[in-house]
């Protein structure tokens, strides 16, 4: 897409800052494969945003379910590998803490495309 380098409007912009909007996945710690837990879909959207989960084929990442499925487990393993964590595929505390931390908005896709495949242990 050809996008403008920046909007040229000079209107005064007021930025409302009320609450921190960081992702808080702490309630998902130790959620098990096969579970259906509210918030898992948000985690999938986070992992989709950074290149770890593909969408469901409908073209919309809004349709992720709250089921902790095998694809999510693989995505978590890949995230753990890329972030230098032990590869477990599980939502342990250290993994959830990193997922809840502020980060660069550049997708990790370039790390994923290095061609290494991971398996949860």
């Amino acid at each position: 897409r050809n996008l403008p380098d920046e909007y040229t409007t000079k209107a005064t912009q007021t930025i409302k800052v009320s609450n921190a909007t960081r992702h808080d996945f702490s309630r998902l710690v130790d959620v098990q494969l096969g579970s259906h837990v509210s918030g898992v879909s948000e985690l999938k959207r986070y992992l989709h945003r950074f290149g770890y989960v593909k969408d469901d084929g409908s073209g919309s990442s809004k349709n992720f379910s709250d089921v902790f499925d095998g694809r999510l487990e693989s995505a978590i393993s890949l995230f753990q590998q890329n972030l230098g964590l032990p590869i477990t595929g599980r939502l342990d505390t250290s993994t959830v803490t990193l997922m809840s931390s502020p980060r660069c908005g550049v997708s990790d896709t370039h790390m994923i495309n290095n061609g290494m495949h991971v398996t949860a242990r």
Partner: protein
Amino acid sequence: YTYFGGKPKWNRDTLTYAFSETHKLDYPTSDDVKTVFRRAFGRWASVIPVSFKEVDDYTTANLKIGFFAGDHGDGKPFDGVLGTLAHAFAPKNGRVHFDAAETWVVNDDFGSKVAVDLESVATHEIGHLLGLGHSSRESAVMYPILPPRTKKVDLTVDDVAGVLRLYGPNPELRLDSLAELKDSLRNG
């Protein structure tokens, strides 16, 4: 270290950079922000044969720096306080955007629980502008995560090795001052 797909890089030894006049912060001041970026660019320039020159003309600068809030038209909307802090584009796009909603600090004033060190994020994003992707090494500047109230501005062996493979060394770079890097390069 990693690279963007296709391993894009700049093919010039001087890159100009400019700050958006319309998308900027009220605080810290422009002077403080410019000082921070000067230091951040200097770190990368000390290891590769590329220099960075600040210019006034945003439209023609190679590297374009701006602070934006929310959806700012590039398909990568910012999300308010914390979450995503900034993003940059691979060479030779040159754009780098910082989330204007963050509590950016420039003088280690980490009083706020959501304070984010501008120099650390700037150093990271300049790595992207040069062509580096994210690193798996937690100590590396190019590691994608930066907790609030954290300062991480010194390039590590991983960062330096990555950028050296793209641009080669600055003739004034003394590898013997980077013992760990020397060992790393010796080992291939």
